[in-house]
């Protein structure tokens, strides 16, 4: 057995890693390749959260004294930053949620549920994360609607041609992920949205794996709903967002009822307040929103095109190295383009064993079904090993994984 391959054209010195204290200072030996699960935070995000609590903290939309006003202004500024970050026409179109998951559930329960009828269809795809599958499965079964699935082709891309009836009348919504968290492929969101638009069918795009890794503009995509998450783009956990075209948001009901969302309440009735506040019942997550916006600002400063180029280069080198190993099966095959995420299987080594051996060697990768059981079932797999790259990764991280692979082969294979 040869020693581990070294990756070609290595990105040897990563200038961004120093911004991430956990990776640079606390765990300098750690090779963190699990960025699709969650990303680490730059100091500027951590500082923004600390500042939120130590300088601008107060109630939002609820107080008339200066500190409350400052807190409200900071929260709304965060909304503006994020709306701008994804190219929304107005900050009204950006709703803060707890997560991408909550954003999707909000659309399922608040928008789809009231208008879905028996015999209607919702189309999802074979590669959806459970977060973007289960809410639709449930709503369809509650309403007697049909959940239809766009299947995969051999190359791991979606087979839109075979999705019969996709743009026909009974379809009330098309739901798809922009980037697959398992296969790493990017879907032709813009083309799908354009056709759906002509047919008058709204589209929801799950952007959790795209935002923060590449430039994203929801107006260019022309989707109706777009969901993403703070913690996957170097921001805090506990905060995500839903973008919706204003006319869609006007059709949508809140998921939660409570403080801050109404104009008037009497014993029997209430009238909803304005958009977006009506969708954010309860005291908002101020520090989360501020940290989320700080992450967007951090990325804007570097430039998303730069982020994309750097990570793509490393990813291509990693893909090349892995595809040279005869015992490794890439999912999908090596010729399919992907960006930050690479899934693979090593002959004779269970993905969990691999992830554990790698973990002990200081390399963090993910193993399992990645919350995509419908996809795994179709591929006939129980799970894969997955490496997913971030802004702070460099050639040493990929080399460490290649070494860990060798170790696993010696130990288990």
């Amino acid at each position, binding site marked *: 057995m040869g020693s581990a391959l070294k990756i070609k054209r290595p990105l040897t010195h990563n200038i961004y890693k120093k911004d991430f204290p956990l990776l640079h200072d606390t765990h300098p030996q750690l090779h963190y390749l699990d960025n699709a699960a969650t990303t680490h935070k730059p100091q500027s995000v951590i500082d923004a959260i600390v500042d939120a609590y130590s300088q601008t903290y107060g109630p939002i939309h609820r107080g008339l004294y200066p500190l409350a006003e400052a807190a409200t202004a900071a929260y709304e500024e965060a909304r503006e930053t994020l709306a701008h970050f994804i190219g929304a026409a107005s900050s009204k179109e950006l709703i803060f949620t707890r997560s991408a998951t909550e954003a999707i559930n909000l659309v399922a329960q608040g928008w789809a549920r009231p208008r879905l009828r028996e015999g209607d269809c919702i189309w999802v795809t074979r590669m959806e994360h459970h977060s973007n599958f289960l809410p639709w499965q449930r709503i369809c079964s509650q309403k007697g609607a049909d959940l239809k699935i766009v299947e995969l082709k051999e190359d791991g891309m979606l087979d839109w041609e075979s999705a019969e009836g996709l743009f026909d009348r009974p379809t009330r919504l098309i739901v798809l992920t922009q980037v697959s968290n398992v296969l790493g492929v990017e879907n032709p969101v813009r083309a799908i949205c354009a056709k759906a638009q002509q047919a008058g069918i709204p589209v929801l795009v799950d952007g959790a794996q795209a935002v923060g890794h590449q430039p994203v503009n929801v107006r260019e995509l022309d989707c109706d709903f777009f969901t993403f998450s703070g913690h996957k783009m170097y921001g805090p956990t506990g905060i995500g967002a839903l973008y919706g075209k204003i006319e869609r948001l006007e059709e949508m009901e809140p998921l939660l009822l409570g403080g801050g969302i109404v104009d008037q309440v009497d014993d029997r009735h209430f009238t909803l307040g304005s958009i977006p506040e009506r969708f954010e019942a309860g005291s908002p997550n101020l520090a989360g929103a501020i940290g989320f916006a700080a992450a967007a600002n951090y990325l804007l400063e570097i430039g998303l095109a730069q982020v994309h180029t750097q990570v793509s280069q490393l990813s291509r080198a990693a893909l090349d190295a892995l595809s040279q190993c005869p015992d490794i099966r890439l999912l999908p095959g090596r010729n399919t383009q992907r960006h930050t995420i690479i899934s693979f299987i090593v002959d004779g080594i269970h993905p*969990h064993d691999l992830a554990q051996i790698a973990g002990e060697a200081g390399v963090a990768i993910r193993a399992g*079904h990645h919350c995509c059981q419908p996809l795994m079932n179709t591929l006939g797999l129980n799970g894969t090993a997955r490496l997913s790259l971030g802004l702070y990764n460099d050639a040493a991280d990929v080399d460490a994984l290649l070494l860990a692979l060798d170790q696993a082969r010696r130990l288990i294979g």
Partner: protein
Amino acid sequence: MTTHQLYKDVLLDHYRHPRNKGNLDGARVVGRGSNPRCGDEIEVGLFSHGNMLDRVQFRGRGCSICIAAASMMSEALSGRSKTEAAQLSVVMHRWFGNGNGAKVEPTPPALEALSAVREYPARRKCVMLCWEALSEALFALDQTLRPL
């Protein structure tokens, strides 16, 4: 070599050369354990007469820990009585179940090496898969032994 490393080597040996792995044809009863989260699956067959488990065999697929645990279990139980197997199963559930995982005495020496897995809580389920299959098999065996 640390005890921990020694234990790991024992596990690896069981994984590479599993004991009593194979065909379950002719087993008196078969029980099944599966983990839908990772797709691992173990079937345990009891080759018994009366209360005696002459041989415990298994087949299935799984990670190294899953296979090693099943192999070790089969060794520990072959030639024991049904009652002894049930007692050991209780011990294992206490040791690797949802509780605090405190080690319970007496752990049979044949299973001692499994303590290497205790530091990986995420993988306790892998150890327990074969024991779940065993519980199902023992239950089935009880049914066959019940006087009509």
